[in-house]
């Protein structure tokens, strides 16, 4: 995650559980995507719609290059990838695979991509598959105060699903946002980490959990 002057660029990625080196692939994908988006902002001062989509191509190539450097089968580094840039209330987002991005506006909390990709639970799209660009969803949401990105291990705590569509559980987000505002700035990450490592979170899902939340103060 990077931030400055009212602009935050964040990414989360979830390595595919069965792939041996997916964690390093996920890490590389996040680093490459965030770096690319930050470079675009530094160059032109603003983000274009296509920049977030291009970040996924850059991330994919970075992971493939890492595989070559390390002498690893490239498929072993597969991961999902979620990227968001919150720029003074305008949210640019991109998502490939499961997990969710939740934007909070004056009208409430919204899952930016509510449709589930796959009907079946043990399928997800990932950054290294051939059809990745067709599976990539992206968009812009305006008037966003806060945004959360999380992997599918957090979904059971924060979202509800009905008729194939995800929706935020508002009580969860309202509580967490208020609780984070009540924490000192340096304590907020620890609060989130404690929640994710709690027995209550483990009851919801045994999957790895990653959650980034961008909260605009004021």
């Amino acid at each position, binding site marked *: 995650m990077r931030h400055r002057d009212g602009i935050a660029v964040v990414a989360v990625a979830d390595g*595919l*559980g*069965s*792939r041996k080196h*997916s964690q390093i692939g996920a890490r590389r994908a996040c680093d490459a995507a965030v770096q690319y988006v930050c470079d675009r902002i530094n160059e032109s001062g603003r983000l274009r719609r296509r920049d977030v989509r291009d970040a996924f191509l850059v991330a994919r190539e970075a992971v493939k290059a890492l595989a070559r450097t390390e002498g690893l089968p490239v498929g072993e580094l*597969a991961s999902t990838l979620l990227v968001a840039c919150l720029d003074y209330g305008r949210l640019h987002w991109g998502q490939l695979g*499961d997990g969710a991005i939740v934007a909070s506006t004056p009208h409430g909390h919204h899952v930016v991509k509510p449709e589930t990709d796959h*009907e*079946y*639970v*043990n*399928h*997800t799209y*990932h950054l290294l598959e051939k059809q990745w660009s067709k599976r990539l969803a992206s968009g812009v949401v305006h008037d966003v105060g806060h945004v959360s990105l999380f992997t599918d291990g957090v979904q*059971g*705590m*924060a*979202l*509800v*699903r*009905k*008729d*194939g569509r995800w929706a935020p*559980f508002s*009580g*969860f987000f*309202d*509580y*967490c946002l208020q*609780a984070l505002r009540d924490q000192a700035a340096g304590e907020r990450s620890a*609060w989130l980490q*404690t*929640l994710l490592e*709690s027995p*209550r*979170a483990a*009851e*919801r899902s045994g999957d790895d959990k990653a959650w980034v939340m961008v909260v605009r103060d004021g």
Partner: protein
Amino acid sequence: MAFYDDVPMPDQPQEPKLASILVLDTSGSMAGDAIRQLNEGLELYRWEILGDKQASVTVDSCIVAFGPKAWVVQPFGPAEQIPAGGLEAGGPTPMGAGLELALDELEDRRRVYRRDGIDTFRPWIFLVTDGRPTDMKPGDRRFRALAERIREGEAAKRFSFFAIGVDGADMEVLGQLAPPSRPPVKMRGHSFKEFFEWLSDASKSASHSCPGDTVQTPDPSQGANPWAELRV
């Protein structure tokens, strides 16, 4: 009490489900050793699934029998509801009615999953028969409609369909019903016990699978399956 105990969360989602339908021939030709071994195999399957903590909450079993009529022996539910030794053999072979009933049961179950937001694995349908249908024949409207329904469902990934022919089965008819991507498999003799051991292992593997795993849909033609004859 820790702070995280106060965090509002939605109702606990249910464990994902693997809908698994067995469409079993209980016509007269299955009398004697065949039906006895089929019942024993079902009992073994029940205990194997119940013995695996994850599989016991994941596998959502339904049993449809055909012979003398088509009927739902057990509607969708946990393995503990699988009846022990209850199947009897007799009468003709209404395979068409049995398959239609099974496909309808699956569609109803999928609607429930969707309505209730329950995660699922791709469902499995296993047809096990030792004969040929007496309520339809290749080329007639019912047969063509069923074959199309199975092909279309498989192609749309609504389910995976497996046709298993026991001694005496008309493999040609099964070949016309089964999807082209998954031709029927011939069972060796009455090796129902081995078949249900294989099925319970496959069910347990699927229950424990992670995203990206390739072991999701079982393939009876692969591996050292003592119950399956090699495809020619």
